């Protein structure tokens, strides 16, 4: 793992790169979020007010300002996935993980989120877990994927 200073230094000191920097800092955090310290360091590095950096971070849905699980599940909820039953998958995930959308399991393993179109509509219904995409989802497939993720630890 890189130190935060190393990450910052790999980008030019130019406010243009704020989103790239926030991506890099968040990817480096095992709990997939930006800590208050990250925001402050980014602001200092780019010579911007902390409020400005937080304003940018809170605008984009890929950034989180509170701790998330090791695996962030982002279920696609756009019309093509909706048509083939993503809503019942959401209910299933909520029941199975015993959390609601936006929440994290007590063991800090999974966070459940909704996302708009992932651009893999041909294998709808689909979801993303961190960087990986899963398609043609069914209840059984979800069971298998969650099992696999649990087993990874």
């Amino acid at each position, binding site marked *: 793992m890189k130190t935060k200073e190393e990450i910052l230094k790999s980008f030019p000191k*130019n*406010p*243009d*790169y*704020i*989103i*790239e920097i*926030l*991506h890099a800092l968040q990817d480096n955090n095992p709990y997939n979020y930006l800590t208050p310290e990250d925001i402050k360091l980014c602001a200092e590095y*780019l010579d911007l007010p902390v409020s400005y950096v937080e*304003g*940018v971070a809170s*605008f*984009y*849905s*890929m*950034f989180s300002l509170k701790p998330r699980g090791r695996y962030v599940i982002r279920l696609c*909820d*756009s*019309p*093509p996935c*909706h*048509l*083939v*039953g993503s*809503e*019942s*998958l959401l*209910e299933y995930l909520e029941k199975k993980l015993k959390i609601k959308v936006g929440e994290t399991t007590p063991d800090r393993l999974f966070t459940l989120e*909704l*996302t*708009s*179109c*992932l*651009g*893999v*509509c*041909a*294998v*709808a219904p689909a979801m*993303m877990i961190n*960087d990986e*995409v*899963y*398609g*043609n989802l*069914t*209840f059984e497939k979800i069971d298998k994927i969650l099992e696999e993720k649990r087993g990874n630890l």
Partner: protein
Amino acid sequence: MSIVRSHVLISIDANTLLAGAKAVEEALINELRRRGIDKEVGVIETGPLGIIGKGVVMVVYPEGVYYGNVKPEDIPELVEEHFIKGRPLKRLMIENIITPSVVVKEEVGLTKRQVRIVLKNSGVINPESIEEYIASDGFDGLTKAIFEMKPEDVIKVVKDSGLRGRGGAGFPTGLKWEFTYKIPSDEKYVICNADEGEPGTFKDRLILEGDPYRIVEAMTIAGYAVGAKKGYIYIRGEYKLSIDRMQKAIQTAKEYGLLGDNILGSNFSFDIEVRKGAGAYICGEETALIESLEGKRGVPRIKPPYPVSQGLRNKPTVVNNVETLANIPDIVRNGAEWFRQFGTEKCPGTKVYTILGDVINAGLIEVEMGTPLREIIFQYGGGIKDGKKFKCALVGGAAGAFLGEEMLDVKMDFENLKEYKAVLGSGAILVMNESACIVDMLKSILRFFEHESCGRCTPCRVGTKRLVEIINRFANLEGSEEDIDEMVNISLVMKDTSFCPLGQSVHLPVVSAIRYFKDEFINHFKEKYCVANRCGRKVEVLS
């Protein structure tokens, strides 16, 4: 490259990787080696073949046989049958496929002619190989532009070709370039908009994954034409493979002297940088995209001034969609007349569509502008699956309109659809059969808009909320006649008063849904009846 008797092109893209394409490729290479024919049969990774929902897909040339749902355990049988015995393995063959990148032009007395423009190389060449791109006429357009044409000549060709922006608005591309060219400035920029977020659209992703050098070449030509030295491609953060491929393509092009300082030894220098989005639909709007590139919250700017005069860092900026740019190299190479032979008078060229939903062959096609919707759904899409009847199609994504059965013969281009209060939009065609519920669909669309509204202007921020509240009533088998009128009302006020195209587009699905299926809304509260049996109760079964 050694000479081989057969080529196996295996599609490596987000969809097939998901289905285990790498394991299949490895099994294939091992099996060919075991059989001692690895020198005779070449295995090549290529981009998306445009066949979707069939797992790992590959095509064998010269026969042109397509295989789908291939698993590692199928490989011994496949090699035995196809490459040893020389007969295709019927069990895995995909028949009656719609080839992805093919335009079929039928003329009386003439045989079918196939033309590919945007998807010419997709699924044919290895997207990570610059040699293969060059071998298929790649960088010819750029070379011609730099050494044989003045910037004005390039702009003239693009103007004469009649190419219009494929991002949705359909603005003439040449005109955009000319505006930027004419404004004197020490710095100008070219931006490729790859923030593809319209629900049901993935054409730009497939172009970037399947033919990244085409976009490098096109952006460089645009830079030469308008006098820019720097280009940015803004790719949505979720498109990991597209980002990787594009970064590699830029790097390799630089090593070959096709990008960077003094391109091909000329005086012209141009550089491209990849930027990642972070999950905001609104950043597909060009001024919001520019704000995001500048490291700000992605909220749209007031227009005018337009980006062509004051864009990135307030400098003249050309913003073009991926598909638009993908047309440029061939237009410059072959000329405006060549391009004009395809499509319609006012909208020349082709259009890439993603056909989804209840059709037999879901996937990606490139057809001429002006192709009727019926042909797209029933010929290329193979018709409605499970023997059901066509109900309607949502054309253009969430910011598009529902088209009912009586609209099937509409010729799809920017002009014709406008007459019917519909839009071509991103080219997404979501087909619904008779058992889909329009209220349920509209609910999904309106929730999407509510989530993606950036909150800057009141009509959109509040309007999307109110619309969701109302549609939820119908979804609970409640609501009233007044609610129907109110939905139309709100969406039309939003059209007139919203700040940017997001709020201004919401009326398209709302008004068209009510125009064609008002009875269905009424059934929901009067008869407590939902055709899909989805509203008013929780669904347990997956279709």
